[in-house]
């Protein structure tokens, strides 16, 4: 049963500016898939789209904000995060998602994202990592694997890439995950978790860029790229994110790396400061109020560095 009609309404159309479709992305580009996952997540959770905000930077991924039928901001290159911070700070009731690319978020915007994670700003960041700058024609990105060819590394990339999940984890994100654009259901689930979670949530999604990156690196065919992801990705939760590097033609981890308990978000603290109770409190009490339920940073690091293997109880000598 196949039907085709202009009257057909895709289930996600209710979240899309359908008058702008088809979108600008190339055939097989992973960004569309990830956007689809985001919208499915929104739909699954039944969120009020009036309260959803998408903020994007510049680049292929940055165009995503233009297609969603919600408040959406297509900002300057690298600056989606501070925009989101300002917006969220003033309207904490909004569910703000930054949807942007690896170059936007981690090269030009690198400073902002680490600070947003450090502050535990209650925003969700979906970073589509396609290993290069697609929109400008396939230049070197901070995520380009070593030795990969791009238009600005014609002899092979000499720079080691960022491990985005490791960087975000040590920066203080309370939720860090990585998926690829073939892991649509798990990615959707992960986005659902991030949308529901308070605090800084970061999801890296590896996606094929068949046009700009793939064709220079033997992954021209999006189908092949996704098969590559399927083959190389090891799905495992709570791997130490610092060890979850991505190297060419090697297996890499996908999954949830960090999922810390709820703590006070940046916005909680900002608004706490405006309360009369806080302002009038003696300094000792104020300290307590600021610390709230947020765990000590050191403890955070310990949780991070000693992520236990997912094993069962019943260890040595213990009762069963």
């Amino acid at each position, binding site marked *: 049963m196949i039907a085709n009609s202009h009257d057909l309404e895709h289930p996600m159309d209710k979240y899309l*500016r359908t008058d*702008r479709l088809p979108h600008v992305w190339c055939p097989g580009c992973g960004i569309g898939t990830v956007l689809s996952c985001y919208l499915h997540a929104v739909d699954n959770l039944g969120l009020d*789209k*009036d*309260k959803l*905000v998408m*903020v994007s930077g*510049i680049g292929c991924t940055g165009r995503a*904000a*233009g297609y969603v*039928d*919600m*408040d*959406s*901001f*297509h*900002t*300057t290159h*690298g*600056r989606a*995060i*501070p*925009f*989101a*911070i*300002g*917006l*969220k*700070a*003033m*309207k904490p*009731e*909004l569910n703000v998602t930054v949807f942007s690319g690896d170059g936007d978020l981690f090269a030009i915007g690198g*400073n*902002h994202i680490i*600070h947003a994670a450090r502050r535990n700003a209650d925003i969700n960041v979906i970073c589509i990592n396609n290993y290069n700058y697609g929109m400008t024609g396939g230049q070197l990105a901070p995520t380009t694997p070593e030795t990969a060819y791009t238009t600005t590394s014609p002899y092979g990339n000499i720079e080691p890439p960022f491990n985005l999940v490791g960087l975000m984890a040590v920066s203080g994100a309370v939720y860090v995950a990585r998926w690829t654009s073939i892991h649509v259901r798990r990615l959707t689930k992960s986005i659902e978790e991030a949308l529901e979670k308070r605090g800084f949530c970061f999801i890296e999604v590896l996606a094929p860029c068949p046009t700009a990156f793939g064709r220079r690196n033997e992954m021209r065919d999006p189908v092949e790229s996704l098969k590559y992801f399927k083959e190389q990705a090891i799905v495992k939760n709570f791997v130490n994110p610092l060890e979850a590097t991505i190297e060419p033609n090697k297996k890499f981890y996908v999954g949830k790396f960090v999922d810390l308990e709820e703590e006070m978000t940046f916005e909680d603290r*900002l*608004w706490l*400061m*405006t309360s*009369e109770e806080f*302002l009038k409190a003696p300094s000792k009490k104020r300290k307590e109020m600021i610390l709230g339920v947020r765990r000590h940073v050191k403890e955070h690091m310990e949780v991070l560095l000693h992520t236990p293997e997912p094993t069962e109880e019943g260890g040595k000598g213990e009762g069963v």
Partner: protein
Amino acid sequence: MVRDVLTGTHFMNGDVAAAEGAIAAGCKFYAGYPITPSSELAEHMAMRLPQAGGIFVQMEDEIASIVAMIGASWAGAKVMTATSGPGFSLMMENYGLAIMTETPCVIVNVQRGGPSTGIPTLVGQGDVMQARWGSHGPYEAIAVSPNSPQECFDLTIRAFNLAERFRTPVVVLMDESVGHMFEKVVIPDKRKIKIVNRKLADKKMKGHYLPYLADDDLIPPMAIAGEGFHVHITGLTHDERGYPDMSAEAQERLIRRLINKIKVYEDEIIDLEFDEYKDDADIYVISYGISSRCSRRAVKLARDEGIKASLVRLKTVWPFPEKYIRNLAKKAKAFVVAEINNGQILREVERCAGAKPVYFSGLMGGRVHYPEEILEKIEEAAGK
């Protein structure tokens, strides 16, 4: 809540006065990054804004500061940031974003000596052109320039009102000397402070609302995030729906309107201060900020010498009061421009002076004029 308007008479410096002005104007969000000589403003905001129910965020840099401020503005808040030359330079790209997206916001620039790191703790007025042309592309800018702590208070409120009225960023061009100068500041009763709020989208328009469809006044009503308008805002050239439109026609239509919405209201915006010699003068000294205070003394000294000088002070630097200067040029013998740079407003005056000579008293920064230095130029202009 602690009062947001500290009605009464105070002794405070310009930075603090500007902060109080912002709070009095209804500023509820400040994002900034410390930089001399604007830091006192940030410090004061950090203390006062929470008391006034607002949010103070110290961002990781000036870029983040201006962008966060733009974001907060889209959440419906009156917003401000403050910086000095180097930080102002960093803000320029997103100054453009604010103009393009028609985001009301206030940027305070407490000027210091430059270029580059320059002389952080000493005065300069070298950012005037940057406030006008700092971002790329064609656009109109609004900048006010106080010359006393009292004016820092007053003009900051005005800057907010202009920003909200015209949905555009407004620069408060202070300088180090004004910022660090302590003087009496009288804060009036709250009810006596005139406050302008941005024109908001009509909730009834939900579903049909076009974020960039301007009313007859050339200014589109603004929709706030989270109100159900589902606006799409982009720094790309866009049509009335906010959708990117990469055609020359769209660019012409949009940018023309962005310019016109200020041009048309120039008279309303421009604020010049004349002294008592205005009508009986042939040499007009044109100055702003701290230089205008030196110029006033120079004019006094010139008058003592019998020179018919008069001071024209630019309380709004941008838009430039082209029409007024051209009018003055009709009767003036000469102009003298005093500013702490190598001639920025000078060029604007020259442009409007017609055949009348323009004498320039410039300093590279680090100190303010001695009135005698300006007097020398007035004397030169008077042919003495």
